[in-house]
């Protein structure tokens, strides 16, 4: 399956530096159509307004966490099939299992590198 590098991607993190890092790493991998949100509720609003092909979200954010956002996405008939990757510093087994149960497609622990990000993107989207 060919991956469309122009696909719209939503990245969610409360740290602006992290958004910038992820955006730049994605750009390096060839993805240029990237939108940002700084918490779950803002992300949900954006996701409902525009159809994204991929969501990459942090966990620990205020007021709505990435976990709640994930559950909202999976509960929404319009959004429920959107690929969702969690990128977070939360690295307890319980977190990973909870996220998986909630329907996350993949999980990246911070700090991460470009190679890890690419591997996970390939795992979720297919080779590119």
């Amino acid at each position, binding site marked *: 399956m060919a991956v469309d590098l122009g696909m719209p991607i939503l990245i969610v*993190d409360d*740290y602006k*530096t*992290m958004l*910038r*890092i992820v955006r*730049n*790493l994605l750009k*390096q991998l060839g993805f240029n159509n990237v939108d940002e949100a700084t918490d779950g509720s803002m992300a949900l609003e954006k996701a409902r307004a525009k159809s994204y092909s991929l969501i990459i979200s942090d966990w*620990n954010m205020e007021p709505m966490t990435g976990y709640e956002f994930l559950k909202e996405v999976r509960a929404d008939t319009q959004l429920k099939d959107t690929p969702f990757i969690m990128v977070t*510093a939360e*690295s*307890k*087994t*319980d977190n*990973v*299992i909870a996220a*998986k149960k909630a329907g996350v*497609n*993949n*999980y*990246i*622990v*911070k*700090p*991460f*590198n*470009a190679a*890890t990000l690419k591997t996970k993107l390939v*795992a979720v989207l297919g080779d590119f």
Partner: protein
Amino acid sequence: MLNEELPRQIELLVDNLRKNGDEARSLTDVAMVTEVLIGTMQAFFKTVDTAVYKECRQLGEYISNARKEIASLQPVDSTGDDDDERSDRLPRAGMELDAIVQATEDATNTIMEAAEEIMGADISDVDAYQALTTDAVMRIFEACSFQDITGQRVSKVVQTLHHIEERVEELSQLLGVSEKDILESKKAEADKITEDQALLAGPALHGEGIDQSSIDALLNDMPPPATTSEEPAPEPTEPTSKEPAPKPTPPPAPEPPKAVSPKQLDNMFEEDFDPMADIAAKEEEKKAKEEAAAKKAASAEPIPEPEPEPNMPAGEEVSQDDIDALFG
């Protein structure tokens, strides 16, 4: 109060007995007086009892409250039950801070190494140059993620500090520490600080301190001799300090220099540390670490992907590999 009444009542009784002179006392008289006396004494002892009891109870409460407050400050829970999260807050905070220092150091090194690679790259082969810079730039981006992670760690430490602040506040209220006590202890502390220590406040917060242009202005305003006289002796660049004074050579000594030359100024500030040696030491340490990491990675590689759940103990931190195993 009753204890004042007691002697008076006994006095009354005695007076009463005296009034009747040396008439023979009937048994009933004696019995009556004794009864009154017993009643009075009982009432007295009862009040003494309750007063002492009250005091004791208050003291007990006070001690147990103080103990509770101190216990909540206690770094490690000695009973071993760790359902109380704050039991390991203090050591945890220390570890978070250590991790912050480590993360910023690693990030700084990674960024500087990448920058050095770009600076030292061979530009004759454009393709190789582009590949190298791209790779280096990526590593810089990756390294910058320390800001997010250290930020999260810092907010945890701040939480712990707030918690301790509250506890200490409660404890000091409990113990009746007054403003005056605080001021006194502050003053005592201030007295202990030497002049040198007083100059070590660390980095200023936003809005504190002065900016570079104010510093420049200050330095320009300062009369040059002041800098030399205030600087302690070990000034290798200052020939004057080596020359003992009793040398009344006619040509007026060129001692008081017009101004400190930039070079001299640099020497003044850099005397104690040798940046090159510092970098070399860091380099070596880094190399050793990398080698260790490489060895570890090499030995880790051939191991097949572990089975998902079984080796993921609940509640523990897991690695990316463990997580990958979960997602197959």
